[in-house]
């Protein structure tokens, strides 16, 4: 049985797409099927040929109607492609569009969906996915009962797929009827922090929580970040307070990040926050409360009011960097 992996052409063959391909390749090997890559969105020849070196076939959906993401039209296109391909599984990353489309696609294909997978397995022919539940306090294994299994994956948790030296897979462009009148239409798009590296790919992150007490301290954190090449992030409480944009939120319902170092400033360490940083290599914290749960996850920490720490820390880091 074949495995389909879905990539959006506007995000290139990034680390997330590579992880999805890696998961797909493993599953295809276990199930003895082909790995077929679907690239949907505006034409992206570089991405098509990258995937042609990874997958056994590349299915390109780049009609004019797909030049910009529109949920109803993209869903229509994917439904049509998946119906024809009749795969055992359809794999997505865990970006906004994937999460939006996967459950609906599963419904249209009479399959089953599950999301935020961190591991895949096959048991007696049935596809199983591991994911964290209860706000990161537990991990569950879920067996999909209908076929296809439509899964969105915490893509960076999976090793990239091996690449061949040359792009040998056939590239096909199936005819898809998209002459529908979409009842919803995205009419305006805005990306914040354009040009900045993605938080998911950051090597060092410095993150602020409710204990900062307002938006201004984020400027001080920015100074520290500048000294060590870090990117800024925040807890939900800080985002909900309007101190920083929602796209900075890290956690179960924010970004899932995997930096080498994550510095949590005035963040308690609620399980839902920790669910977003379980792949961080080293966690450090500045917190006024020695009993804050964050310290249970830290390699090192300092118990102190952040107001006393940050100015000194700036000085020290600047001196050490010289």
């Amino acid at each position, binding site marked *: 049985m074949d495995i389909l992996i879905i990539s959006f052409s506007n995000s290139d063959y990034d680390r997330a797409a590579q992880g999805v391909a890696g998961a797909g390749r493993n599953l295809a090997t276990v199930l003895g099927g082909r790995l077929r890559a679907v690239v949907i969105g505006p034409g992206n020849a570089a991405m098509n040929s990258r995937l042609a070196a990874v997958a056994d076939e590349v299915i390109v959906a780049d009609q004019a109607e797909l030049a910009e993401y529109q949920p109803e039209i993209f869903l229509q296109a994917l439904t049509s492609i998946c119906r024809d391909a009749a795969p055992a599984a359809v794999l997505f990353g865990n970006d906004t569009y994937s999460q939006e489309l996967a459950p609906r696609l599963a419904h249209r294909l009479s399959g089953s*969906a599950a999301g935020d997978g961190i591991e895949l397995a096959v048991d007696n022919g049935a596809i199983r996915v591991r994911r964290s539940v209860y706000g990161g306090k537990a991990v569950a294994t879920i067996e999909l009962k209908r076929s296809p299994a439509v899964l969105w994956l915490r893509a960076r948790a999976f090793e990239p797929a091996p690449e061949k030296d040359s792009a040998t897979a056939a590239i096909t462009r199936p005819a898809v009827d998209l002459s529908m009148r979409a009842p919803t239409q995205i009419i305006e798009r805005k990306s914040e922090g354009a040009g900045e590296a993605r938080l998911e790919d950051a090597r060092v992150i410095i993150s602020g929580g409710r204990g900062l007490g307002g938006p201004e301290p984020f400027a001080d954190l920015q100074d520290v970040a500048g000294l060590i090449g870090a990117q800024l992030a925040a807890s939900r409480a800080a985002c909900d307070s309007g101190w920083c944009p929602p796209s900075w939120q890290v956690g179960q*319902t924010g970004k899932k990040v995997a930096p080498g170092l994550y510095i949590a400033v005035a963040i308690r360490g609620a399980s839902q926050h920790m669910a977003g940083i379980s792949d961080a290599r080293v966690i450090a914290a500045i917190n006024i409360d020695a009993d804050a749960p964050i310290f249970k996850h830290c390699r090192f920490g300092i118990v102190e009011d952040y107001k006393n720490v940050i100015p000194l820390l700036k000085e020290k*880091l600047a001196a050490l960097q010289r």
Partner: protein
Amino acid sequence: MNIIVCLKQILDPEVPARDFRIDAEKKEAVRGTANLVTNIFCENALETALQLREKTGGRITALVFAPESGEDALRKALAMKADEAVLVINDGHPHPDPLAVAHVLAAAISKIGVFDLVMVGRESGDWGVGQTGGLLAEELGVPCISFVDNLENGTDGLIVTRQTDNGWEKARSTTPLVVTITNNEYNVPRIPKTRDIMMSARQPITRLTLDEIGVDAASIRAGGNYYEIVDISIPVKEVTCEFVTGDSLDERVDQFAKRIIEVTQAL
């Protein structure tokens, strides 16, 4: 504008990790002393609905699929000033799968009648499945927009703002429509007034059985048609935190800075 807000009642997700236990047999969390609360994103949805009603007028129906305990979630919704409350009684499966839930909600919504907008939370604080909205839209045969944090009435249709990975998008949509709601600084759920809490205790709640909405109760009770929880466990992750030491704050921060440099240089 007729708005239906679906609310899920869950085990309080604020239970600290150290008090959290699993029942391996039932494959779910042990209730212990934890309260049942309304899922936060469902409250964000209700708050967003209340603000929309302030701008456009209309009626808000709060809809809960739960055992009898679900009444508490509806009382709170009424106290927040939802107009009507409907409880579809779940007398069977402790945690029905998302397709079963969507199927039940769709049947209940058809029974309630006309609607322009259905609002649900983006995911729940217990299982965090994140599929109810999408599956519900398919069951109802209407479009869906996810991760929405604001809605306004436009000249031709609703103007819906939603969060994306690195910013936001605005969509124009006809109704009926399903949206899944995420949090932002403006839809933090309001705290109901004491007077409204007292009034809500006397307001009527419509109770519906699965039979009454034409859903096969046996199949909901049996469950497991969509997916099955095979196992659940609490991951162990032991890290010992080294607190930086030193006689003065200066020394401690110096230690802290050195550790940071050590780690970043090894990356």
